[in-house]
């Protein structure tokens, strides 16, 4: 019964996907980006981390189709003489890794807290949700900026940059868990009093089992919907932190730190160092948001009508 229902749902998902041009285009671009991020070392013409291959004399060469451009650097070079295309590919890889890592962490913390809060109820629920409310009222970006600033002052810039990737995952993960906790709690409250949960309780299963293998699977579709938007948010937060100099260092740039590095050179006319990474970031976030919108419409027919 369960699998059959799932199948129908899946085919409906597929059906509406085929009919929606925006979704198809977005998904294709997203897949392309993810592919590029995953295989960056193979696709990139140069290795931007290999210091020996970088020549500072190559710095600020414009894109190949412009005057002064060279064919070996298709999109030109950045301030350190690295091939911009290769650096962007590696940067996308880092941004995607941080975005997805942070979302996994958020989802893990948020689902655990949301489940506990919704299922146990009472005082546990009141305390946990108060904490979530308070943290949400502070704007996730603000929390992320302040936490990363404190960590950077505590560790010093040098140490911070060495462990920047896991740190950013933890910082963004901690900043945004309340979103998940609230969503999961809301659907747990909806599921908790249904007959199948009661049946499970009557046959004597323990609450851990009921929570994780009975209720949890039924709360996952809203989790899926917010996950897409959360990935976009996490990538955007990471870019903002890096832009402020609180994220990835220029020696191992993410998209945000590339934009930051290029920004100082925009006044001298080297617009491409900022422009191409910026376009990459915008398109990446836009397609995720469009897919998220589509997914929300499909999985939540109540909203679809409105």
């Amino acid at each position, binding site marked *: 019964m369960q699998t059959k229902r799932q199948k129908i749902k899946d085919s409906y998902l597929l059906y509406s996907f085929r009919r929606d041009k925006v979704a198809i285009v977005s998904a294709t671009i997203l897949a392309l980006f993810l592919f590029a991020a995953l295989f960056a070392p193979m696709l990139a013409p140069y290795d931007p981390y290999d210091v020996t291959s970088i020549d500072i004399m190559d710095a600020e060469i414009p894109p190949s189709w412009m005057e002064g451009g060279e064919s070996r650097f298709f999109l030109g070079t950045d301030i350190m003489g690295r091939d911009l295309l290769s650096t962007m590919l590696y940067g996308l890889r880092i941004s995607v890794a941080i975005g997805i890592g942070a979302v996994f962490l958020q989802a893990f913390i948020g689902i655990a807290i949301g489940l506990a809060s919704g299922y146990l109820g009472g005082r546990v629920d009141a305390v946990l949700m*108060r904490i979530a409310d*308070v943290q949400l*009222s*502070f*704007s996730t*970006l*603000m929390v992320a*900026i*302040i936490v990363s*600033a*404190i960590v*950077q*002052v*505590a560790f010093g810039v040098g140490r911070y940059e060495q462990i920047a990737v896991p740190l950013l995952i933890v910082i963004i993960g901690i900043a945004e868990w309340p979103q998940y906790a609230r969503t999961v709690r809301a659907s747990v409250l909806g599921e908790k009093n249904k007959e199948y949960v009661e049946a499970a309780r009557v046959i004597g299963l323990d609450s851990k089992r009921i929570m994780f293998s009975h209720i949890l699977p039924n709360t996952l579709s809203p989790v899926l919907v917010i996950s897409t938007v959360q990935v*976009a948010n996490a990538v*955007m937060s990471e*870019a*903002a932190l890096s*832009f*402020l*100099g*609180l994220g990835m260092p220029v020696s191992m740039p993410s998209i945000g730190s590339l*934009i930051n590095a290029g*920004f100082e050179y*925009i*006044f001298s006319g080297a*617009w491409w160092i*900022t422009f191409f990474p*910026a376009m990459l*970031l*915008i398109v990446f*976030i*836009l397609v995720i*948001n*469009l897919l998220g*919108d589509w997914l929300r419409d499909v999985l939540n027919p109540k909203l679809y009508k*409105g």
Partner: protein
Amino acid sequence: MFAFIVRRIIQATVVMLVIGFIGFSVKHQLGDPVRDLVGISVSVEEREALREQLGLNDSFFEQYGRFVSNAVRGDLGYSYFFKKPALDVILSKAPATIELVFVSSMLILLLSVPMGLYSAIYPKRFFSRLAMGVSIVGVSIPVFLTAIVLIYVFAVQLHWLPSYGRGDTVNILGWESGLFTIDGLRHLVLPSIALSSIMLPLFIRLIRAEMMEVLETEYIKYAWAKGLTRKRVWLVHAFKNTLLPVITVGGVQLGILIAFTILTETVFQWQGMGFMFLEAVERSDTALLVAYLVVVGALFVVVNTVVDIVYGLVNPTVTIASR
């Protein structure tokens, strides 16, 4: 209702104590006031004596208690870079940020209300579709990129508007204001557009969604049946009821705007609190960092508490629930 207000204020106080606790632990772990005060030539014994005198050998909670009681009296520590009390530094930077936030919120308000209403009333028209399409693109563009594009187009290429700083300011009762000089206003244009760009799409969508919902309700149908003019139904009957959620969300978003001022101020070298905060991070000015944390924390808490209470006053269902 009274119990509700009291409860909200108690909660706000607890949150402030927690923020103070975080701020104090950061200060306790990172800053060494003795090292900040004395040079290298001071002996170990003298340092010890100074530590004792400053109360740094007391227990953690004694020191925390002192931190809180000082903070309540407005003493948030001393910035060793500016050689001034940290709160004074922040207050001297606050007008710049407040003016930026004020002008941006005005922009958001004046643009989002008519656009949101229009696209709710005529959802099929070209302009409405355009507004919706642009708003999803707008949500996807980080605020610092909007800022960079604005600088590149209007400052670097066209030379129409200045790209950084506040320009001329006038001192009005101790408030350094850029709102009353032409130069100051010209400097405000790009930063405030950049800052409002992040919230504008959200508000247009929110107002549109609320308005569309209200237009479907029974009492609007009744208003049509009464034969009221279109203007009266839309602007008096319907719009009034879309305002409630907009006010709540608006209050919370006002707090979030403050987070985005850090980004905007960095791009435009705007001498406000956010710019100061990042400089403090670079200089490891712990006292200033902690003071900023406490001040911004207080700002968020006050805004949220006021919004909650106002909402409670306006919306009767909240009052019933809290009894």
